[in-house]
Protein backbone atom coordinates (compact mmCIF):
# COMPACT_ATOMS: atom_id res chain seq x y z
CA UNK A 1 0.00 0.00 0.00
CA UNK A 2 1.34 3.40 -0.91
CA UNK A 3 2.11 5.97 1.78
CA UNK A 4 -0.61 8.30 0.62
CA UNK A 5 -3.12 5.46 1.01
CA UNK A 6 -1.76 4.61 4.41
CA UNK A 7 -2.30 8.13 5.65
CA UNK A 8 -6.01 7.92 4.91
CA UNK A 9 -6.24 4.93 7.24
CA UNK A 10 -6.05 7.09 10.38
CA UNK A 11 -9.84 7.05 10.69
CA UNK A 12 -10.24 3.32 10.16
CA UNK A 13 -7.37 2.66 12.55
CA UNK A 14 -8.87 4.85 15.28
CA UNK A 15 -12.15 2.95 14.90
CA UNK A 16 -10.45 -0.48 15.09
CA UNK A 17 -11.80 -1.08 11.60
CA UNK A 18 -8.61 -2.46 10.05
CA UNK A 19 -7.96 -6.13 9.66
CA UNK A 20 -4.67 -7.49 10.97
CA UNK A 21 -2.71 -7.04 7.78
CA UNK A 22 -3.71 -3.43 7.20
CA UNK A 23 -3.22 -2.67 10.84
CA UNK A 24 0.33 -3.96 10.80
CA UNK A 25 1.15 -1.93 7.69
CA UNK A 26 -0.37 1.17 9.20
CA UNK A 27 1.37 0.78 12.55
CA UNK A 28 4.64 0.43 10.70
CA UNK A 29 3.89 3.68 8.89
CA UNK A 30 2.80 5.34 12.13
CA UNK A 31 6.26 5.05 13.61
CA UNK A 32 7.67 7.42 11.02
CA UNK A 33 4.72 9.75 10.71
CA UNK A 34 4.24 12.05 13.73
CA UNK A 35 1.39 13.92 12.06
CA UNK A 36 -0.45 10.62 11.55
CA UNK A 37 0.11 9.75 15.19
CA UNK A 38 -1.35 13.07 16.30
CA UNK A 39 -4.33 12.61 14.01
CA UNK A 40 -4.87 9.08 15.33
CA UNK A 41 -4.87 10.38 18.91
CA UNK A 42 -7.48 12.98 18.05
CA UNK A 43 -9.67 10.63 16.07
CA UNK A 44 -9.44 7.93 18.74
CA UNK A 45 -10.51 10.51 21.33
CA UNK A 46 -13.40 11.39 19.02
CA UNK A 47 -14.41 7.73 18.80
CA UNK A 48 -14.40 7.61 22.59
CA UNK A 49 -17.03 10.34 22.60
CA UNK A 50 -19.22 8.05 20.53
CA UNK A 51 -18.67 5.37 23.18
CA UNK A 52 -19.54 7.65 26.10
CA UNK A 53 -22.74 8.63 24.34
CA UNK A 54 -23.80 5.01 24.06
CA UNK A 55 -23.72 4.35 27.81
CA UNK A 56 -26.27 1.89 29.08
CA UNK A 57 -26.99 1.19 32.77
CA UNK A 58 -25.13 -1.93 33.88
CA UNK A 59 -26.97 -4.51 36.01
CA UNK A 60 -26.05 -4.18 39.70
CA UNK A 61 -24.72 -7.73 39.75
CA UNK A 62 -21.99 -6.71 37.31
CA UNK A 63 -20.41 -4.41 39.85
CA UNK A 64 -20.54 -7.05 42.57
CA UNK A 65 -18.88 -9.53 40.27
CA UNK A 66 -16.18 -7.12 39.10
CA UNK A 67 -15.40 -5.97 42.65
CA UNK A 68 -15.25 -9.57 43.79
CA UNK A 69 -12.90 -10.46 40.97
CA UNK A 70 -10.49 -7.56 41.37
CA UNK A 71 -10.07 -8.46 45.03
CA UNK A 72 -8.53 -11.72 43.82
CA UNK A 73 -6.51 -10.42 40.87
CA UNK A 74 -2.99 -9.26 41.37
CA UNK A 75 -2.12 -6.05 39.59
CA UNK A 76 0.75 -5.72 37.18
CA UNK A 77 3.73 -3.78 38.41
CA UNK A 78 4.51 -0.50 36.62
CA UNK A 79 6.07 -1.23 33.22
CA UNK A 80 9.28 0.68 33.89
CA UNK A 81 11.59 0.46 36.87
CA UNK A 82 9.68 2.59 39.33
CA UNK A 83 9.97 2.66 43.09
CA UNK A 84 7.81 0.03 44.73
CA UNK A 85 4.45 1.61 45.33
CA UNK A 86 2.78 -1.15 47.18
CA UNK A 87 4.17 -2.94 50.15
CA UNK A 88 1.72 -5.76 49.51
CA UNK A 89 3.32 -6.64 46.20
CA UNK A 90 5.67 -9.53 46.47
CA UNK A 91 9.23 -9.14 45.35
CA UNK A 92 8.72 -11.72 42.62
CA UNK A 93 6.23 -9.57 40.79
CA UNK A 94 8.79 -6.99 39.77
CA UNK A 95 10.74 -9.28 37.51
CA UNK A 96 8.28 -9.03 34.63
CA UNK A 97 8.23 -8.77 31.75
CA UNK A 98 11.52 -9.83 30.25
CA UNK A 99 12.40 -12.36 32.87
CA UNK A 100 8.97 -13.90 32.65
CA UNK A 101 9.10 -14.10 28.90
CA UNK A 102 12.33 -16.02 29.14
CA UNK A 103 10.79 -18.26 31.78
CA UNK A 104 7.80 -18.91 29.61
CA UNK A 105 9.88 -19.79 26.59
CA UNK A 106 12.06 -22.01 28.72
CA UNK A 107 8.98 -23.69 30.13
CA UNK A 108 7.54 -24.16 26.68
CA UNK A 109 10.78 -25.74 25.53
CA UNK A 110 10.88 -27.98 28.57
CA UNK A 111 7.37 -29.16 27.88
CA UNK A 112 8.30 -30.09 24.36
CA UNK A 113 6.04 -27.27 23.29
CA UNK A 114 6.29 -27.41 19.59
CA UNK A 115 3.59 -25.90 17.47
CA UNK A 116 0.36 -27.52 18.54
CA UNK A 117 -0.98 -28.02 15.09
CA UNK A 118 -0.30 -26.85 11.62
CA UNK A 119 -2.33 -23.99 10.41
CA UNK A 120 -2.53 -23.28 6.76
CA UNK A 121 -3.35 -19.64 6.72
CA UNK A 122 -0.01 -17.94 6.58
CA UNK A 123 -0.52 -14.75 8.49
CA UNK A 124 1.53 -11.64 8.41
CA UNK A 125 3.87 -12.07 11.33
CA UNK A 126 3.88 -8.39 12.11
CA UNK A 127 0.12 -8.26 12.26
CA UNK A 128 0.05 -10.90 14.89
CA UNK A 129 3.05 -9.67 16.79
CA UNK A 130 1.53 -7.12 19.12
CA UNK A 131 -1.44 -9.24 20.07
CA UNK A 132 0.75 -12.27 20.45
CA UNK A 133 2.97 -10.24 22.71
CA UNK A 134 0.05 -9.41 24.99
CA UNK A 135 -1.05 -13.01 25.12
CA UNK A 136 2.49 -14.15 25.72
CA UNK A 137 2.79 -11.59 28.48
CA UNK A 138 -0.27 -12.86 30.32
CA UNK A 139 0.70 -16.47 29.81
CA UNK A 140 4.18 -15.62 31.03
CA UNK A 141 2.76 -14.03 34.15
CA UNK A 142 0.87 -17.19 35.05
CA UNK A 143 3.80 -19.44 34.30
CA UNK A 144 6.16 -17.19 36.27
CA UNK A 145 3.83 -16.72 39.23
CA UNK A 146 5.57 -17.70 42.47
CA UNK A 147 2.88 -20.29 43.16
CA UNK A 148 2.59 -21.71 39.64
CA UNK A 149 2.11 -25.50 39.62
CA UNK A 150 2.40 -27.68 36.56
CA UNK A 151 0.98 -31.02 35.54
CA UNK A 152 1.52 -32.92 32.30
CA UNK A 153 -0.63 -35.80 31.08
CA UNK A 154 -0.19 -38.07 28.09
CA UNK A 155 -3.19 -37.96 25.80
CA UNK A 156 -2.41 -41.00 23.70
CA UNK A 157 -1.13 -40.94 20.16
CA UNK A 158 1.96 -39.16 21.42
CA UNK A 159 0.06 -36.02 22.32
CA UNK A 160 0.63 -34.39 25.68
CA UNK A 161 -1.32 -31.82 27.64
CA UNK A 162 0.17 -29.54 30.24
CA UNK A 163 -1.62 -27.21 32.62
CA UNK A 164 -0.04 -24.50 34.70
CA UNK A 165 -2.19 -23.09 37.49
CA UNK A 166 -1.54 -20.07 39.67
CA UNK A 167 -3.91 -19.82 42.62
CA UNK A 168 -2.81 -16.30 43.46
CA UNK A 169 -3.65 -15.08 39.97
CA UNK A 170 -6.66 -17.36 39.78
CA UNK A 171 -5.65 -18.20 36.22
CA UNK A 172 -4.55 -21.26 34.31
CA UNK A 173 -2.58 -21.87 31.14
CA UNK A 174 -3.10 -24.88 28.91
CA UNK A 175 -0.54 -26.16 26.45
CA UNK A 176 -0.66 -29.17 24.18
CA UNK A 177 1.87 -30.78 21.93
CA UNK A 178 1.32 -33.32 19.23
CA UNK A 179 -2.42 -32.74 19.00
CA UNK A 180 -3.90 -33.42 15.59
CA UNK A 181 -5.69 -30.61 13.82
CA UNK A 182 -9.39 -30.74 14.76
CA UNK A 183 -11.73 -32.19 12.12
CA UNK A 184 -13.13 -29.71 9.63
CA UNK A 185 -15.83 -27.55 11.21
CA UNK A 186 -14.72 -28.53 14.72
CA UNK A 187 -12.65 -26.85 17.38
CA UNK A 188 -10.95 -27.87 20.57
CA UNK A 189 -12.73 -26.34 23.52
CA UNK A 190 -11.32 -26.00 27.01
CA UNK A 191 -13.33 -26.42 30.19
CA UNK A 192 -12.90 -25.90 33.88
CA UNK A 193 -14.07 -28.89 35.88
CA UNK A 194 -16.17 -27.61 38.77
CA UNK A 195 -16.71 -30.85 40.63
CA UNK A 196 -17.98 -32.65 37.54
CA UNK A 197 -19.72 -29.65 35.97
CA UNK A 198 -17.85 -28.35 32.96
CA UNK A 199 -17.53 -24.58 32.66
CA UNK A 200 -16.43 -23.14 29.26
CA UNK A 201 -12.85 -21.82 29.32
CA UNK A 202 -12.33 -20.75 25.72
CA UNK A 203 -11.38 -22.29 22.42
CA UNK A 204 -8.01 -23.26 21.10
CA UNK A 205 -7.57 -21.16 18.02
CA UNK A 206 -5.65 -23.07 15.37
CA UNK A 207 -4.94 -19.79 13.58
CA UNK A 208 -2.86 -18.74 16.56
CA UNK A 209 0.37 -20.62 16.43
CA UNK A 210 1.20 -20.53 20.09
CA UNK A 211 1.12 -23.83 21.87
CA UNK A 212 -0.01 -22.25 25.11
CA UNK A 213 -3.33 -20.56 25.76
CA UNK A 214 -4.60 -18.68 28.75
CA UNK A 215 -7.81 -20.36 29.85
CA UNK A 216 -10.71 -17.92 29.84
CA UNK A 217 -12.26 -17.15 33.16
CA UNK A 218 -11.19 -17.71 36.72
CA UNK A 219 -9.93 -20.98 38.11
CA UNK A 220 -12.18 -20.52 41.13
CA UNK A 221 -12.88 -23.84 42.79
CA UNK A 222 -12.22 -25.90 39.68
CA UNK A 223 -10.46 -29.16 40.50
CA UNK A 224 -9.22 -29.70 36.97
CA UNK A 225 -9.81 -29.03 33.33
CA UNK A 226 -10.87 -30.87 30.23
CA UNK A 227 -10.64 -30.67 26.45
CA UNK A 228 -13.39 -31.70 24.06
CA UNK A 229 -13.98 -31.48 20.34
CA UNK A 230 -16.93 -29.16 19.67
CA UNK A 231 -18.67 -27.71 16.65
CA UNK A 232 -17.06 -24.50 15.38
CA UNK A 233 -17.81 -21.64 17.71
CA UNK A 234 -17.84 -23.85 20.76
CA UNK A 235 -20.66 -25.11 22.95
CA UNK A 236 -22.31 -24.14 26.21
CA UNK A 237 -21.76 -27.65 27.53
CA UNK A 238 -19.57 -30.46 26.27
CA UNK A 239 -21.24 -32.42 23.48
CA UNK A 240 -18.59 -35.10 23.21
CA UNK A 241 -16.52 -37.26 25.50
CA UNK A 242 -13.45 -35.46 26.76
CA UNK A 243 -10.25 -35.91 24.85
CA UNK A 244 -8.39 -35.11 28.02
CA UNK A 245 -9.14 -34.52 31.67
CA UNK A 246 -6.35 -33.10 33.76
CA UNK A 247 -6.53 -32.63 37.50
CA UNK A 248 -5.07 -29.40 38.69
CA UNK A 249 -1.84 -29.87 40.62
CA UNK A 250 -2.00 -28.95 44.29
Amino acid sequence: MRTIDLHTLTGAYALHALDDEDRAAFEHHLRDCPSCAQEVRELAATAVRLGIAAATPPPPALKDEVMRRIAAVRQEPPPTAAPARSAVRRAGAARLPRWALAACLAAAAALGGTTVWQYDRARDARAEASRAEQRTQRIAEVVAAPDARTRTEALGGGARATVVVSQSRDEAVFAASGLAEPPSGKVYQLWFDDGGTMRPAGLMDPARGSGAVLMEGRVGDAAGMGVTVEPAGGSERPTSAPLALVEFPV
Partner: protein
Amino acid sequence: MREAVHIGREPSPRPDLDELMTLVAQGDQDAFAALYDALAGSVLGVARGVLRDRAQSEEVAQEVLVEVWRTAARYRADRGTAVNWVLTLAHRRAVDRVRSVEAAAARDHRAALLDRTTAHDEVTEQVEVRLEHEQVRRCLRTLTEVQHQSVTLAYYRGLTYREVAELLSVPLGTVKTRLRDGLIRLRDCLGVTA
Protein backbone atom coordinates in the same frame (compact mmCIF):
# COMPACT_ATOMS: atom_id res chain seq x y z
CA MET B 1 -36.88 9.08 12.65
CA ARG B 2 -38.16 8.92 16.18
CA GLU B 3 -36.72 11.58 18.38
CA ALA B 4 -35.34 10.28 21.62
CA VAL B 5 -36.08 12.03 24.86
CA HIS B 6 -32.82 13.46 26.03
CA ILE B 7 -32.09 12.60 29.59
CA GLY B 8 -29.95 15.30 31.10
CA ARG B 9 -27.52 12.89 32.70
CA GLU B 10 -23.83 13.16 32.19
CA PRO B 11 -22.54 9.58 32.43
CA SER B 12 -18.96 10.83 32.44
CA PRO B 13 -16.28 12.02 32.21
CA ARG B 14 -15.39 13.78 35.37
CA PRO B 15 -12.08 15.54 35.68
CA ASP B 16 -10.88 13.48 38.61
CA LEU B 17 -10.87 10.18 36.72
CA ASP B 18 -7.21 10.52 35.84
CA GLU B 19 -6.35 10.88 39.51
CA LEU B 20 -8.58 7.94 40.36
CA MET B 21 -6.63 5.87 37.87
CA THR B 22 -3.39 6.70 39.67
CA LEU B 23 -4.93 5.45 42.92
CA VAL B 24 -6.24 2.35 41.18
CA ALA B 25 -2.72 1.59 39.98
CA GLN B 26 -1.68 1.63 43.64
CA GLY B 27 -4.26 -1.01 44.50
CA ASP B 28 -6.98 1.27 45.87
CA GLN B 29 -10.25 -0.66 45.53
CA ASP B 30 -12.42 2.28 46.60
CA ALA B 31 -10.91 4.35 43.81
CA PHE B 32 -11.65 1.51 41.43
CA ALA B 33 -15.27 1.41 42.61
CA ALA B 34 -15.59 5.12 41.84
CA LEU B 35 -13.98 4.59 38.44
CA TYR B 36 -16.41 1.75 37.84
CA ASP B 37 -19.40 3.95 38.64
CA ALA B 38 -18.18 6.55 36.16
CA LEU B 39 -17.28 4.26 33.30
CA ALA B 40 -19.02 0.87 33.51
CA GLY B 41 -22.11 2.14 31.68
CA SER B 42 -20.07 3.34 28.72
CA VAL B 43 -17.94 0.19 28.68
CA LEU B 44 -21.08 -1.92 28.62
CA GLY B 45 -22.71 0.31 26.00
CA VAL B 46 -19.74 -0.08 23.67
CA ALA B 47 -19.67 -3.85 24.14
CA ARG B 48 -23.43 -4.17 23.71
CA GLY B 49 -23.34 -2.29 20.43
CA VAL B 50 -20.63 -4.46 18.93
CA LEU B 51 -21.65 -7.83 20.37
CA ARG B 52 -25.44 -7.37 20.53
CA ASP B 53 -25.80 -10.33 22.84
CA ARG B 54 -26.54 -9.28 26.42
CA ALA B 55 -24.64 -12.06 28.17
CA GLN B 56 -21.60 -11.76 25.93
CA SER B 57 -21.45 -7.99 26.23
CA GLU B 58 -21.64 -8.19 30.01
CA GLU B 59 -18.90 -10.78 29.97
CA VAL B 60 -16.66 -8.59 27.83
CA ALA B 61 -17.44 -5.52 29.96
CA GLN B 62 -16.45 -7.50 33.02
CA GLU B 63 -13.21 -8.67 31.41
CA VAL B 64 -12.37 -5.12 30.35
CA LEU B 65 -12.98 -3.70 33.82
CA VAL B 66 -10.88 -6.38 35.47
CA GLU B 67 -8.17 -5.71 32.89
CA VAL B 68 -8.30 -2.02 33.79
CA TRP B 69 -7.66 -2.96 37.39
CA ARG B 70 -4.93 -5.41 36.52
CA THR B 71 -3.06 -3.19 34.10
CA ALA B 72 -3.77 0.22 35.64
CA ALA B 73 -0.04 0.81 36.01
CA ARG B 74 0.24 0.96 32.22
CA TYR B 75 -2.00 3.99 32.08
CA ARG B 76 -0.03 7.12 31.25
CA ALA B 77 -1.76 10.42 31.93
CA ASP B 78 0.53 12.21 29.48
CA ARG B 79 -0.77 10.04 26.63
CA GLY B 80 -4.45 10.75 27.11
CA THR B 81 -7.28 10.72 29.60
CA ALA B 82 -8.33 7.72 31.65
CA VAL B 83 -11.69 7.75 29.86
CA ASN B 84 -9.96 7.45 26.51
CA TRP B 85 -7.79 4.65 27.78
CA VAL B 86 -10.64 2.61 29.22
CA LEU B 87 -13.10 3.07 26.37
CA THR B 88 -10.50 2.45 23.69
CA LEU B 89 -9.67 -0.79 25.47
CA ALA B 90 -13.37 -1.66 25.73
CA HIS B 91 -13.93 -1.14 22.01
CA ARG B 92 -10.80 -3.08 21.11
CA ARG B 93 -11.81 -6.04 23.28
CA ALA B 94 -15.37 -6.07 21.98
CA VAL B 95 -14.11 -6.01 18.41
CA ASP B 96 -11.55 -8.74 19.15
CA ARG B 97 -14.30 -10.88 20.62
CA VAL B 98 -16.71 -10.49 17.75
CA ARG B 99 -13.98 -11.17 15.19
CA SER B 100 -12.60 -14.20 17.01
CA VAL B 101 -16.07 -15.64 17.38
CA GLU B 102 -16.60 -15.21 13.68
CA ALA B 103 -13.24 -16.65 12.77
CA ALA B 104 -13.75 -19.64 15.03
CA ALA B 105 -17.22 -20.23 13.78
CA ALA B 106 -15.95 -19.95 10.22
CA ARG B 107 -19.37 -18.77 9.35
CA ASP B 108 -20.15 -17.61 5.91
CA HIS B 109 -18.71 -14.14 5.86
CA ARG B 110 -21.68 -12.53 4.26
CA ALA B 111 -24.13 -14.25 6.57
CA ALA B 112 -22.12 -13.15 9.57
CA LEU B 113 -22.11 -9.62 8.30
CA LEU B 114 -25.83 -9.52 7.78
CA ASP B 115 -26.47 -11.27 11.03
CA ARG B 116 -24.55 -8.62 12.87
CA THR B 117 -26.11 -5.74 11.11
CA THR B 118 -29.74 -5.50 10.44
CA ALA B 119 -30.33 -3.08 7.62
CA HIS B 120 -27.70 -0.39 8.02
CA ASP B 121 -30.17 2.47 8.01
CA GLU B 122 -31.94 0.74 10.87
CA VAL B 123 -28.63 0.45 12.69
CA THR B 124 -27.83 4.11 12.42
CA GLU B 125 -31.33 4.93 13.58
CA GLN B 126 -31.12 2.62 16.60
CA VAL B 127 -27.79 4.09 17.50
CA GLU B 128 -29.01 7.63 17.35
CA VAL B 129 -32.03 6.88 19.46
CA ARG B 130 -29.83 5.36 22.14
CA LEU B 131 -27.38 8.19 22.35
CA GLU B 132 -27.61 10.17 25.51
CA HIS B 133 -25.57 13.10 24.44
CA GLU B 134 -27.42 15.64 22.40
CA GLN B 135 -24.13 17.07 21.20
CA VAL B 136 -22.92 13.77 19.78
CA ARG B 137 -26.27 13.23 18.08
CA ARG B 138 -26.27 16.69 16.65
CA CYS B 139 -22.72 16.35 15.37
CA LEU B 140 -23.43 12.94 13.80
CA ARG B 141 -26.17 14.66 11.83
CA THR B 142 -23.69 17.04 10.27
CA LEU B 143 -22.02 14.11 8.47
CA THR B 144 -22.90 13.07 4.95
CA GLU B 145 -24.93 9.91 4.69
CA VAL B 146 -21.99 7.75 3.71
CA GLN B 147 -19.78 9.27 6.41
CA HIS B 148 -22.49 8.73 8.97
CA GLN B 149 -23.17 5.13 8.02
CA SER B 150 -19.49 4.25 7.72
CA VAL B 151 -18.54 5.69 11.11
CA THR B 152 -21.59 4.21 12.81
CA LEU B 153 -21.15 0.72 11.38
CA ALA B 154 -17.45 0.69 12.15
CA TYR B 155 -17.65 2.01 15.69
CA TYR B 156 -21.00 0.85 17.00
CA ARG B 157 -21.07 -2.47 15.17
CA GLY B 158 -17.37 -3.23 15.04
CA LEU B 159 -17.21 -3.81 11.29
CA THR B 160 -13.92 -3.57 9.43
CA TYR B 161 -13.75 -1.01 6.66
CA ARG B 162 -13.84 -3.83 4.14
CA GLU B 163 -17.07 -5.09 5.66
CA VAL B 164 -18.49 -1.58 5.66
CA ALA B 165 -17.62 -1.25 1.97
CA GLU B 166 -19.28 -4.54 1.23
CA LEU B 167 -22.39 -3.73 3.20
CA LEU B 168 -22.82 -0.27 1.72
CA SER B 169 -21.70 -1.39 -1.75
CA VAL B 170 -19.18 1.40 -2.06
CA PRO B 171 -15.52 1.16 -3.06
CA LEU B 172 -12.92 0.45 -0.35
CA GLY B 173 -11.15 3.72 -0.96
CA THR B 174 -14.37 5.61 -0.43
CA VAL B 175 -14.96 4.00 2.94
CA LYS B 176 -11.38 4.72 4.04
CA THR B 177 -11.70 8.38 3.27
CA ARG B 178 -15.25 8.64 4.65
CA LEU B 179 -14.18 7.11 7.94
CA ARG B 180 -11.40 9.63 8.16
CA ASP B 181 -13.18 12.77 7.01
CA GLY B 182 -16.30 11.75 8.94
CA LEU B 183 -14.30 11.46 12.15
CA ILE B 184 -12.47 14.72 11.41
CA ARG B 185 -15.78 16.48 11.01
CA LEU B 186 -17.00 14.95 14.28
CA ARG B 187 -13.78 15.94 16.01
CA ASP B 188 -14.19 19.53 14.94
CA CYS B 189 -17.89 19.61 15.77
CA LEU B 190 -17.29 18.15 19.24
CA GLY B 191 -14.20 20.24 19.82
CA VAL B 192 -12.06 17.23 20.67
CA THR B 193 -8.42 17.88 21.36
CA ALA B 194 -5.77 15.34 22.13
